[in-house]
Each structure stands twice: as C-alpha cells, then as structure tokens.
C-alpha cells in the first residue's frame, strides 16, 4: 500500500451530495453503569462510503447495533430518508433497506449457503428460486459461491462472501460493514473494496467500521470519529494523515513501542519445534503440516496469519494442551517435551498466554487471586505446597501483577469477568511475565484491548525478550507483528514459513504468504 497509489485512488473520490439516507440525531445509549453512546449525531448520504472510526470500546458497535435494530437507544431519533423511524429489531431494519455484514460472522455452520441466505430474507422465498438468484448476484459482483455447500466447509473469505451476497439480495440502500477486513488477506480486502466502490457507484450507502486507518483513507468519502461514546470529529479522511486520525481516535499522539536490540548471534535456542505434524482435532480445525521453528533467547518471533489457519492448533501443540506425535517435536530450553502436558512444560520454564482471555486464559467467575493459582500452582513453590492452596501467596501475586501492569479494578480481588478487556489482558499477560519465564508463547496479545493497554503489553513483551527470554507471538494484527518482532514467520493452511528478519520481509510479501501462496519453504524440506 504505497502512499502515491492511495492519493491517486482518493482523488477520484468526492463526498456525494444529497439528502441523507439515514440520519441519527442525539443518540444516547446507557448500559447499567456505562454510557456507550452520548448524544451522537451522524448522517450518511446515498452513494457515500462513510467510515466510523474509534478504538475498541468507543461505542462504534453500540451505535451500529442501534442503527440495525439490535439495540434500542435510551434517547435520540433515527431518520430514514428524512422520516423519523423506530427500528425495533433487525428484521425491521432489513425491511427498511438496511443490511449488515457482521465482524464475527453470523452464519449457521450446519446449514447450506442457500439456507443461510434464505434465513435473512423475509417472506416465503423458495429455495429453488433463491439458488439461481444467489448464483446471478455472486457472478455480477465477482463473489463466487456454491449455494449448496455447507457453511462449515467454507473458508473465512468465502463465509464473508456469503454474508455480503446475503446482504445484497435484500437490495439494501445502506450496507453496514463491521470490520470486514480484519479476517481477510490484503488481496481479499482489495477485492472487497472493488465491490464496495461499485455498490456506492450504484447509489448504495456504505457504513464502514474499521480501525485500519490506511484502508479508510483509501476507501471512504467521509469519516465520523467516536471516542468514549461521543462524536469527537467529522472529517474527510483523505485530507488527514493516518497519524492525525489515530490521535483523534485515541485522544493523544500515539507513541510506538521501541523495538528490541538486535539479537546477538549464537544466542541459546530456548524454544524449538522440529517438523511437527498434527492431525486436526475436529472437522472444522486445521492440520499442522511439518512445522519447524526456533526461538532464541532475547528475541521476539512473530507469527502472522489470518484467523483459522492453524494458529489455535499451533498454540495448543506448543502449550501441551494437545500432545505432539513425538517427544522431540517440541523442545523447551533444549529439553524434548512433545509428549508432556502443559504443567510439565511450565516446569521447564515456559509460560503461555492464549488468545481467549475469558474461559481459556482466565476463569470468568473466579477471583484474580484464584486465577493466579490457575497457571502457577505447579511452578511457584509456595503457592500450593502438598496440594493445599496458600491463599495469601496467591493474593500477593495478584496484587504484584496488578501493580506492575497497572490493572485497574473496582475491588481488591474482583472476579476476572468484572475487569474490562484491556485490564484483564494486562493481568493475564502480567501473570505469566511475573514468573520470569524463559520462554513465553503468546497468542493475540492485544486483541480487542485499548491502545493504552496494547502499548503496555507490547512494551512488556519487548522488555521480557530484552531480559533474555524467548518470546513467540502469534498475532493476526500485522501492524503489531511488524512493530515488535525481530523475526517474522507466516502461518497459512497449517504450514509455517521459516522465520526471517523483519527487515527482509516487506508487508506485501507477508500479505501474499498469508494467502498460502508465495510461502517461503522451510529449509531442508523436499517434496515427498
């Protein structure tokens, strides 16, 4: 994504004139203790691609849910083509002509493409007629789909196509896209932009929610920026720099995490994976194929990739939640441990932070001190002598972690679920780093957390590596991978490219590898 090509694309773009398709006036939404939207004004015109920008928790999702009828505003008014309307539920929104493509797909895995689409259309659509309509729309917009495939068998990109076709068949005048590219490869995203521009050209309004600023600058006519539930600015994104947009979102200038020093040659290999292959645990998972990797003391290796390409499976194989076929497939600090469970691997000095905070990395309804026990009872000598838990120790560790990582909590020892996403993530990462592990495997360290927490967490990873630990970071956030990794590998379809220094991997090359083509073959691998 070079700067010149962007400007060129944008120059053809001007915000269309005309009466707004949809206008929201003074929308306020209160949840129990939180005001998610505070007097929000917003209008989108026909043929306009309108960006809704904001950090996680800024109130974007709430506003969109209100527009789509999934939530009711506490106060305020919505006007549809000038007329005040109440949108009591999503079906009513669809009848008005509002379509939505969800961030986390709202598809039914066990049903076919046609059945899925039929569910979103009102009335008594016959499946036979629908099939041909699906085929014609998907051909028109370059979104190839087979109506009788079962959704469970589709790739992520194909699933999004189903969502979009489903939306288009309702002939909407407004399409809401919630972070549509977060799960796509750069190439798939480009295809999507073509489709969206075409739709806008036909007079359809597109509300585009994203935090990817470059994308917004290349695609959108106009932007509304939310912070803490309020509209803080409206602007023409092409006239602003990405840095300026970011500071509008965050409220202050963002400062980058300093990258670690170069790793000295010949540093000890702390984590190594050797030709690991592992069959998928269930039909919707991915086989790991011949994965090899080394992480040395003092470095961060980042693994980029699109969701669902084997990240979860790799994490499970590294943590020992699933055992590898051979003992020597995984080594921690030189010790073969492929057949040993997660506790044994922790005892070898490794620590793990999974993608899901709630329900995997932490038990929602247990207090923070108990969540300390969760991962540390076997490695901290004083925490559970002879199987009896020392609660004072657990509480002391919880407090130490909270202090070091600035975990903000309402009571001294709250339940994990009472913490906000960012604070809980800081706690979960901090809990492991506090152990001073020699190996840290972390998946999606800043998924869905605010910029402040993300900076804290990334800095902590960098500091840990600099102190001599090996850090392996699996992340779908390419910016994050590029920001703090010393070496980068890409995972696609269960295969892992051999890690290469960041400087040798341009963004475009990574994007290509994420699709599974252009993978750099790991050394020593031959066709068999």
């Amino acid at each position, binding site marked *: 994504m070079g700067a010149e090509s962007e400007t060129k694309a944008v120059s053809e773009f001007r915000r269309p004139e005309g009466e707004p398709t949809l206008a929201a006036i003074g929308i306020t939404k209160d949840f*129990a*203790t939180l005001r998610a939207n505070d007097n929000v004004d917003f209008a989108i015109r026909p043929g306009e691609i309108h960006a809704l920008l904001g950090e996680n928790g800024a109130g974007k999702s709430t506003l969109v849910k209100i527009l789509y009828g999934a939530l009711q505003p506490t106060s305020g008014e919505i006007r549809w083509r000038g007329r005040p309307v109440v949108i*009591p*539920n999503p*079906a*009513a929104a669809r009848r008005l002509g509002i379509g939505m493509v969800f961030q986390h797909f709202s598809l039914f895995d066990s049903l076919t493409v046609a059945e899925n689409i039929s569910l979103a259309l*009102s009335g008594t659509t016959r499946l036979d007629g629908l099939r041909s309509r699906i085929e014609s729309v998907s051909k028109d917009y370059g979104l190839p789909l087979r109506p009788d495939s079962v959704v469970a068998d589709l790739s992520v990109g194909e699933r999004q196509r189903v969502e979009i076709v489903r939306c288009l068949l309702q002939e909407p005048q407004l399409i809401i896209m919630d972070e549509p590219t977060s799960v796509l490869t750069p190439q798939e995203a480009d295809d999507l932009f073509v489709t969206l521009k075409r739709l806008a050209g036909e007079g359809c309004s597109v509300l585009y929610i994203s935090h990817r600023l470059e994308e917004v600058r290349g695609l959108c006519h106009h932007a509304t920026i939310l912070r803490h539930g309020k509209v803080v600015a409206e602007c023409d994104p092409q006239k602003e720099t990405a840095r300026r947009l970011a500071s509008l979102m965050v409220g202050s200038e963002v400062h980058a995490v300093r990258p670690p020093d170069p790793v000295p040659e010949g540093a000890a290999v702390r984590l190594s994976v050797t030709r690991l292959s592992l069959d998928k645990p269930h039909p919707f998972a991915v086989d790991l194929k011949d994965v090899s990797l080394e992480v040395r003391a003092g470095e961060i290796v980042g693994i980029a990739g699109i969701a669902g390409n084997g990240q979860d499976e790799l994490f499970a194989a590294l*943590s*020992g*939640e699933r055992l590898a076929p051979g003992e020597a497939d995984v080594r921690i600090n030189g010790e073969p441990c492929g057949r040993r*469970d*997660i*506790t044994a691997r*922790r005892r070898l000095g490794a620590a*793990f932070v*999974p993608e*899901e905070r*709630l*329900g*995997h*990395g*932490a*038990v*929602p*309804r*247990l207090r923070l001190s*108990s969540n300390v*026990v*969760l*991962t540390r*009872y*076997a490695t901290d000598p004083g925490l*559970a002598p002879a*199987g*009896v*838990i020392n609660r004072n120790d657990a509480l002391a560790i919880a407090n130490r972690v909270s202090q070091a990582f600035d975990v903000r909590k309402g009571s001294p020892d*709250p*339940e994990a*679920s*009472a913490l906000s996403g960012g604070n809980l993530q800081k706690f979960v990462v901090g809990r492991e780093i506090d152990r001073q592990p020699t190996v840290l495997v972390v998946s999606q360290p800043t998924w869905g957390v605010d910029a402040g927490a993300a900076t804290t967490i990334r800095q902590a990873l960098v500091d840990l590596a600099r102190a001599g630990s090996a850090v392996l970071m699996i992340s779908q956030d390419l910016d994050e991978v590029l920001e703090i990794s010393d070496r980068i590998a890409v995972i696609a379809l269960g295969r892992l490219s051999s890690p290469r220094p960041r400087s040798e991997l341009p963004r475009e090359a990574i994007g290509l590898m994420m699709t599974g083509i252009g993978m750099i073959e790991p050394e020593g691998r031959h066709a068999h």
Partner: protein
Amino acid sequence: MRIELIRRPERSAAMAWLSPVIAVVLTLVAGAIIFAANGIDPLQGLYVYFLEPLTLPFTLYELVVKAIPIIIIAVGLALCYLSNVWNIGAEGQLTVGAITGSLLPILFPDFQNVLTLPIMLLMGILGGALYAAIPAVLKSRFGTNEILTSLMLVYVAAYLLDWLVRGPLRDPQGFGFPGSRPFTDFQVMPILFPGSRVHLGLVFALVVVVGAWFILHRTITGFAITTLGQAPRAGAFAGFSRRRMTMLVFLISGGLAGLAGIAEVAGPVGKLEVVISPGYGFTAIIVAFLGRLNPAAIVVAGLVLALSFIGSERAQIVLGMSSQTGRVFQGMLLFFVLACDTFILYRLRFVRTPHAPLARSAE
C-alpha cells in the same frame, strides 16, 4: 410487557443467601394451595407437615436418620455437578453399595468381630464406586452421555437387587418372603443415641461434609473441580485432565452413595430387602442444588428435605394425605431453587413493548 434479564456486573451476595429462602417460602405457598385443593386447612397442613415433626424428640431423631444418607450422597453429587459431570444415578450406586456391602454378613454370617462392619462399609464404598465407574469410563472412553447411562443403571441395579433378594441371597428361614437374613451384632451400625435410630452414619456424614469443604476450598483438586466445571478450556490450560476428573468425581460420588447404601441396610433397614431406599439418591440431587453445591449448606438442605419425608409420613397418618406429597414438595422446591438462582447473576427488568407486527419474520 416483556421480561428482560439484565446481567449483574458481579454475582449478588445477598441473592445467594436469599434465593434458597425464597424458594422454600414459594414451596410452602404452593404447598398450602395443594392442601387447600385437597380440602385440608392449609395452615394445619403446613403445621403437621413442617413444624410438628420438629417438636417431637422421636421425629427429630428420625429427621437425622433420614438426613444421613441424603447428605452423604448429596455431597458427592455436588462435587460432580461442580465439575459439570452429571451423575444422576446415585440411587443405583446406593443399591449396588448396599448389595456388595451385604455380601459379607449374608455369605459369612458367622464372621462376627470388630472388623466385620469396617469390611462391610469398605465393600459398600467399593461397590458404589465401581458401579459409578461404568458411566465414567463410557463417558471418557466413548463420549457417551453420562446422564442417560447413569440413570439406566439405576433400573438395572433395582432389578439386580430384586433378583438377589428373591433368589440367591434370600433368607432360607424367611418363609419364602423376599429379603436376606437380618444383620446382627457386629454387622450393624452402632446406635449413637440410645432409644433412637441415629447411627454411626451421622459421624460419617459430618466427616464427609468437612472433608469435601476442605477439598473444595483449600486444595488444588477442589480448584480443578470448579475450574473444569466453569471453564473447561481454562481447566485444560491449567493442566487439569477432564477425563481424570470425570473418573474421580464419579468414583467419589459413587463411593459415597455406596457408603450411604450399606449404612442404610446395616442401619435402619437391618437387612437386604427389595426396597432399601425411598429414593434418597434422587432426593440428594435436589439437596445438592438447594445447598447450591456447597457442602456446609447441603447439611441444612438435607435436613429440610428429610423433613419433607417425615412430614409426608405424618401427613399421611394425621391428615390422610397421600404419601406422594413429599415428592411433589421436593420437585417444586428444586424448581423454585433453580428459578431463584437466576437472580444471583441477573436482575429482572420489565419492559413495556408496543406490539408491532415486527415479529412476523420469525415465523
């Protein structure tokens, strides 16, 4: 008008205490309605049922006698349910425990010494545990639904007992009636309070309650139970094995049900019979939930449910009510407890909604 549930930010401590109380009150109200419907003065009915037993020494003792097996079993079941393992076949495990524990006194009636009872108890525990191991193994080996298998085994155990006491284990001097020879001397549970039927099982019950409380709140094993129950992935992440835990809680709960079984036949029942339990294994399910899976609260809940057994016996004698009212009360109580527990995590909101024709698309 629509009812909406709003999730509370944290669980309500007040509701955690209030919920069982409200459930008991609601059950009493419903009970009063049932009495009235049967032409009985509701106040008198409730008095005979729930208060009068508490005023008589004999029924107080009997309350404890009934509560013993219920509490012992319920504590075991609580461990299961906390770890999200659904053993509902305690009645069958009780039956098999009673059978295996009785083998010694029936087959070797002359083996009379201080070891007799301990061996009987151990064999009872072992029998219950092994019987519970069947659904546990099927669950962890084949993924078979343990709810259905453990329940099916209740029926199987009942027929096994029926066959044994009418056939191989029948008392030769029993005039052809089903049932084993009565247990004597060293084969029976010592009585704790002379003149009552309260037996050594009371001590077992208290030890079980304290032990379970300690395990749950102070040990890694207990931590593993709650973690695997609430968040299985987090449990696996902690290094706890779901399979091993399924096995462990089934063995513990089965063993405890077996203990309750042999303590019954070596205690109040006195011999192996066609019917050795009025459904203690099922009542214990209610008790486990009424005590919200907390061993200490299960003691209280066990006494309340024991009262419903005594009360229904009294109501039968004094009021001519069916003996089945006890089970109705128990079922209602469990329902009300489950409903009230919702308000620990949620609060209600009533929303007035204009009935727009919007719901049509959902047809």
